[in-house]
């Protein structure tokens, strides 16, 4: 439940395809309280959450922006949400590493 896995997708290059990946992992307990709150809001269907603000959809009119696929393990299995970059805390954004597969 504490482990947050992150995949950055999209962008001009189309990250998340078969050859270009951007992945990271953080412990929720290692995040600053404000960042942890922000992630928990993204994962929950609460007012202000990613889902409430359009889910994975980028800002209206935006193109080539990154989105982040955030996954935590819960008692019911893995829970995944996709959030536009501007809603993801920088500590989470900065955890990803771009790689060639």
């Amino acid at each position: 439940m504490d482990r947050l896995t992150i995949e950055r997708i999209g962008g001009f290059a189309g990250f998340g395809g078969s050859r270009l990946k951007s992945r990271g992992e953080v412990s929720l307990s290692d995040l600053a309280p404000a960042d942890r709150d922000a992630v928990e809001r993204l994962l929950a269907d609460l007012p202000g959450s990613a889902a409430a603000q359009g889910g994975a959809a980028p800002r209206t009119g935006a193109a080539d922006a990154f989105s982040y696929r955030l996954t935590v393990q819960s008692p019911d299995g893995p829970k995944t949400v996709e959030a536009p970059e501007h809603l993801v805390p920088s500590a989470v954004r900065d955890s990803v590493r771009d790689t060639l597969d």
Partner: protein
Amino acid sequence: MTYSCCLVPRDVLARLSSDPSLSATSRKAFLDTIQISHEMRDLRVQATRMTSVAFAHATALTALALAPSVTIYDCKGTQSLPGTPVPNPGKAADPAAKRVFGTTSEVAEFFAKVFGRNSIDGEGMTLMSSVHFGQRYNNAMWNGLQMIYGDGDGQIFVDFTAGTDVIAHELTHGVTQHSLQLDYSDEPGGLNESMSDCFGSMFRQWKLKQDVTQADWLIGADILGPAAKAKGFTCLRDMADPAGRHCLSPQPTLYAQVRPGMDPHAASGPPNLAFCTAAKTLGGKSWDQVGQIWYAALTGWGARPKTGMKDFAARTRQLAQTMYPGAPPVAAAVDAGWRKVGL
């Protein structure tokens, strides 16, 4: 407008607003700023919606300028937009700022001379770009108001301003926003991306004075870094061979392979191949006839955000006949392009 807005990341503001080492006054100021930032974001969304309304009703407006101004800002490694203004960017010591200024000006000239369009909105809109966005940031994007360029990580990608097709690609997202207004998901999203690749490639060919046989039809060839090249990749996408092994981001080649929810950068493969095939079948310069048809389909049809690939193919087939009634090879070439991808 929101051009003067400098957006501090929300998480930074949230952290500061709950930092016990700061005074209550300061914490409240940061909390207030979060609210202001939220309202500013709403304003940006509203600005985009305004595009739709203005597009539909503002035919009597006069142009802002006969040719667009080009402004460059430097984010200096932050994600704070737009950054600080770069004075006299055409003579800037910073190569990225100078390059973006020069290429953006050339893209504006391309749209004006080849398609008779005055800037992104057709009304002389100022073309605003920010360079050095973020740290080792592997991306370039259009945020609804301006272009944004990262420096790349120096391994997989180099500076995203190094690609003339990249800059034209981002500017074309602005043109799409001010014309067909395609959504950014599913088939409209794939078409949206394809428009940017088509006009990005056309601009590169126009700048290099290449005909369709001389063109390489590659997207992102100039921004690949040493790690990507060492693995044999020569581009992000290849409009002539979307599934090629040399593509860092391979794409489907057939319309039947496009799936709901697919990344627009993947779904753009079939329409990219259709455009490339049509242009190569006809021969000559891509922007002379096939490019004109694609431009008319993009800009002369009103706002149709839900346009699918079948609709767009039908529209270009129709335009080929009405725009070039005395030249049957044009319509045949467009038809060959779409047939190649199963449409």
